[in-house]
């Protein structure tokens, strides 16, 4: 990998004129400033499914102008006609060839007419089921080759689905591109608050049965379920797992109020309360900073629900967003993986919009203005967020690139709520 970056850096030095407009691109060739590099994906016959997935992933990365062509035009019989793609505005062409047990990927730098990256990747080429993850990883590699930034294609999103007849209600997972919708929770009961373990294999969520909300930690690969201690009474929800995987913070609602507790996941013990004002206010929706040293959360101690931050041991509880309007409220925070931002939804004068807090500057910026938008979750690139919106007429998940403002819907049957975006899914993940 070091060699790859070195090579990319070398090309960066050679290519002129350079406009590093956002400081993250360490890629190969740039077009005019402010215009995303054009890229096209071409493939040998038999790789249409793989090509379609990669092409879409590159589009969803919001880092390229993907040049979409009909299948017939992208099916290769020899080397890719780079001249044609140059005319179409492509700076990069991804060439996919059949290889034993997978595909060979070549990245062409069009202006230089040179292959700048290549490799064989093992995968199931059918493009269906969980084998799609290996294809998404190729997409992420291409993003990384060209931009130096990590991709988000090889990720999944947990979602609570609510269908009219309730038979399919529950926690599901869906690939980042909206395909491969798969059930996670058991049937029956009410589920809530899905969240990923940082290992990318386990997920936690609340199961509500007989008026008790229990938090379950479930392995996606084996289906093994572990009940989190102290969550077998009362209503326990809004779990968050510390970035090192050793602790879980969650909210417990009992008659006295709602408070945030933390439990040690390593030895499944020692639950203790982090917030202490339950009788006067509700404290919930904890989210760890990526260094694990702080927790952002929601508290009603100021009247309406507002955004607060405390040290991970519960000390130093401080409000983060000051509202001029006493009716304004903030809910559902999530700390960005890069640590610089907290995404949440804010209710100002009756409209719920996704807002982002710059943690360092303490400034807040609204990111949406259409429909009711709630419960946001970060992609691992700290640039894309998924949230629930009714802008299309019913509750569905939408993905927003907060840099470009581009928006796409993840279509699911019925209503979709409380999304949780996974960390990058490692090779070990099925």
């Amino acid at each position, binding site marked *: 990998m070091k060699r790859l970056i070195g090579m990319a850096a070398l090309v960066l030095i050679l290519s002129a004129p350079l406009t590093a407009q956002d400081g993250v691109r360490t890629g190969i060739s740039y077009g005019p400033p402010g215009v995303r590099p054009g890229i096209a994906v071409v493939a040998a016959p038999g790789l249409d499914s793989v090509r379609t997935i990669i092409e879409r992933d590159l589009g969803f990365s919001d880092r390229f102008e993907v040049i979409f062509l009909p299948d017939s035009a992208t099916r290769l019989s020899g080397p890719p006609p780079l001249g044609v793609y140059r005319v179409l505005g492509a700076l990069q062409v991804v060439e996919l060839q059949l290889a034993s047990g997978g595909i060979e990927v070549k990245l062409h730098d069009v202006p230089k007419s040179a292959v700048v990256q290549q490799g064989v990747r093992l995968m199931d080429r059918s493009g269906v089921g969980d084998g799609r993850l290996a294809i998404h990883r190729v997409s992420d590699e291409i993003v990384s080759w060209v931009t130096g930034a990590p991709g988000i294609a090889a990720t999944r999103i947990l979602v609570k689905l609510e269908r009219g007849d309730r038979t399919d209600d529950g926690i599901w997972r869906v690939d980042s591109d909206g395909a491969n919708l798969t059930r996670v929770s058991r049937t029956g009961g009410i589920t*809530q*608050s899905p969240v990923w373990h940082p290992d990318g294999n386990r997920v936690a969520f609340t199961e509500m049965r007989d*008026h008790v909300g229990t938090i379950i930690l479930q392995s996606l690969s084996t289906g093994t379920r572990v009940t989190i201690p102290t969550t077998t009474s009362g*209503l326990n929800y809004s779990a968050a797992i510390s970035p090192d995987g050793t602790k879980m913070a969650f909210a417990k609602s009992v008659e006295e109020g709602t408070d945030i507790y933390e439990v040690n996941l390593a030895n499944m013990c020692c639950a203790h309360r982090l917030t202490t004002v339950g009788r006067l206010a*509700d404290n*919930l929706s904890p989210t760890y900073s990526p260094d694990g040293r702080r927790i952002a959360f929601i508290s009603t101690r100021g009247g309406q629900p507002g955004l607060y931050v405390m040290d991970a041991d519960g000390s130093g509880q401080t409000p983060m967003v000051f509202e001029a309007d006493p009716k304004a409220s903030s*809910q559902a925070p999530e700390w960005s993986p890069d640590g610089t931002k907290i995404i949440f939804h804010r209710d100002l004068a009756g409209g719920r919009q996704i807002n982002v807090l710059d943690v360092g500057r303490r400034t807040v910026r609204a990111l949406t203005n259409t429909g009711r938008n709630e419960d946001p979750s970060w992609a691992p690139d700290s640039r894309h967020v998924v949230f629930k919106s009714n802008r299309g007429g019913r509750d569905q998940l939408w993905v927003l690139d907060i840099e470009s403002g581009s928006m796409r819907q993840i279509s699911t049957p019925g209503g979709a709520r*409380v999304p949780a975006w996974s960390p990058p899914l490692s090779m070990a993940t099925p």
Partner: protein
Amino acid sequence: MTQRTLVAALSGLLILTTACGKKAEPTVTPAPAVRPTATNTDSIARARADSIRAEEARRAEELRRAAAEAEAARAALVNELAETIHFDYDQYTISSSDQQLLDRKAAIMRANPALRMRVTGHADERGSDEYNLALGMRRATAAKAYLSGRGVDAGRVEVASLGREVPIDPSSNEAAWARNRRDEFEIIAGGQSLVRPN
């Protein structure tokens, strides 16, 4: 009752049952030992038996009616106990009209010490799902606190929250939201027979 009349009554009953059992046969051979006066005794006994049965039926009917009335009264009390109360948006303050409903529930609970209830708070679909769970708990607790204030032992009322998960009306409009922001009341013990409060 003398022994004679008892015998007469018994034989009368016997004839009666025989007659009933052999309704299809037109002729019945009269018992030779029976004198004409005995016929009178038979008819008296028959009338007597008829009146006993009528009385029994009347009593049964009375019991049935009383039971139905009791059940209706119980059902009315159960309905009063189960009547939902509603909340303003993002609030858990109990309105004055709902206070009257809770006063009535408290009176029924005081009159029926074995009665135990669960209050489940609900929210409308707006706001984070998680906040709505906490809000539902606040709403349930508000009703419990009110009942406690009206002399109901706190140990007899359980609280729970279902947040926005179980709407009465799944539509997305003000009317549906207003119906969905509620406390539901459920009898969890002692509801088999209920005494009306004075």
